[in-house]
């Protein structure tokens, strides 16, 4: 389960968690704007990068979403990307990673 994912993160990576979360939050905050401007290249890059790094922290669901985001962005499939971003943001809320407003 990813609900208690923080405890399950490899002890080796606990020290890196704050920086990872900060990166994740700042990049996630950019997603809606990028979609609005149809910057699919940048969206694909973000998907690609998180696809490669979320796995270290046991965030398998987010890893899958990253993979999907990358593929859909490469195809410039705006509706699909929009749905994925919604799912992404919802997942962050569920994981307690949504940035404070």
């Amino acid at each position, binding site marked *: 389960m990813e609900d208690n994912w923080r405890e399950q993160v490899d002890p080796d990576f606990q*020290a890196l968690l704050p920086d*990872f979360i900060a*990166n994740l939050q700042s990049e996630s905050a950019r997603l809606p704007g990028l979609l609005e401007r149809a910057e699919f*290249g940048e969206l694909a*890059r973000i998907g690609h990068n*998180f696809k*490669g*790094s979320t796995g*270290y922290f046991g965030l398998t669901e987010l890893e899958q979403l990253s993979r999907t985001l990358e593929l859909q962005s490469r195809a410039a499939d705006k509706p699909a990307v929009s749905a994925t971003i919604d799912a992404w943001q919802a997942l962050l809320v569920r994981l307690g990673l949504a940035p404070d407003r």
Partner: protein
Amino acid sequence: MRFSLEYPETQFALVRAVSPLQQNITLKSNEKLCIQVIEFVTHVTWVLETSNKFGAKAGRVIHNVSWSSRHMSDEGIGPIFVVDDDPNQRMILEHWLSREGYEVVLLESGEACLEALGEELPAAICLDLNMPGFGGMNTLEHVHEHNPLLPVIVLTSDDAVDSVVKAMRLGARDYLTKPLDQTKLITTMANAVEVGRLAMRVSQLEREADGRGYPGIVGNSAPMKTVFRQLDRLCVSDVTVLIHGESGTGKELIANAIHANGSRSRGPFVAVNLAAVPETLMESELFGHEKGAFTGAINRRIGRFEEANKGTLFLDEIGELSPQVQVKLLRVLQERTFQRVGGSAKLSSDFRLVTASHRDLEEEMRQGRFRQDLYFRFAVFELDLPPLRMRRDDIPALSRAFVRQLGDGRVENVSNAALQIMMAYDWPGNIRELQNLIQRALVVCNGKEIQPEDLPERMRSAVPASIPVEAPAEPAALNDTTLEDYSRRLVTNALTKHEGNASAAMRELNIGRTRFYRMLKKFGLEGKIEELRQVK
């Protein structure tokens, strides 16, 4: 003669480490060199079992070594460049690699990597293939263009087989897929670093075997061994170098050696003595001028920067630059573009920069005479050339080299008596002064060896009184063995005269503490001080 090397399957790391050697061994046709190479670069004693098979000589390595993490070699290695646009990947790689003892430099783009390569030679590069801008593949191509020996490990996602194949064809050492596996990363990195180190070492030994080495640079003293070690590293990188050294120490020779043995050796070596260029002509000299740019500019002329394209630009005596020229030079080095005087086109040139100065530039900075920002542009790698008085042991070899080089064969050598005087002299003009002295002595010398009387009076009178300037009484004292005997006698006499007082003996012999104690050890006189003190 062909050598094939066989290893146990389990020592895959070793196989990979030595595989580049195998190619060189095959090429070299020199069994002794091959064995020396292997022994030298692996730091283990190898036993080669040889046999004749199929008309070719095959060698089997039967030494069973355990693969240790030798990346922390005593010689010290460069950092690992981690090049990835993803801050999380950079962070994780830094975390794992730094824990293994590597120094890690984090770079977020290919452009940043190429810029950093101009400033530092890494031990290996971890390069993400999928990056915006210049991209990983272009970066890899550029890296290998300038330093084919530098190991690059490419990072890629698990679904990018085509990219991996292309990267390997472009010279990548290995590849890793994301998410990375820590153990695999560490093993791959250790192998890559070791392979890079071996390849550079082999390249150096090949240079020596081919007689390339550093022609014209004579020296076997401890300070020169340090210089040669530094040169070995500089020749496999494109780093900017600042050579410090007193006048006459051979700075241009060193700069030329860096060029001739580096990846730009096919390009031009352009040397500019800035002290000899009038300030009014400096811009035109360095950047060129267009026709009619100023009175007398009757033709277009390309400057030294353009001339050095694809090669090495050596700027000597940078300490002599006026503040105005320093500003201009800094701007050009920062922007990497320049314009000919009177021209409007922005030009660029791809050259390696080597600079030199006889001045203490740090002191010049403190005094406000030299710009700090320019200094740091120049002083990416600083190489100190020792003055001749700090490498007196090299004087006999240097003198003989000059006799051979400058003479017509009539004079064959320098007598030991003359060498004694020369070794006691301080050589304020360094090697240039020695060269001039030999040239002069060759003219006045009547015999086959340069004698004390062939040396200038000022030199003979500068020698401490304890050193007899007459030729040694015994004719047998005219060979190297006797020179040692002679030196031993001088040291013994000095110690005896001062009743075991080492400092007084050093002063009399006009030599430093390190050299003095090295001589005591060499001549078996270590107990002499105590012995003489007891007598006292």
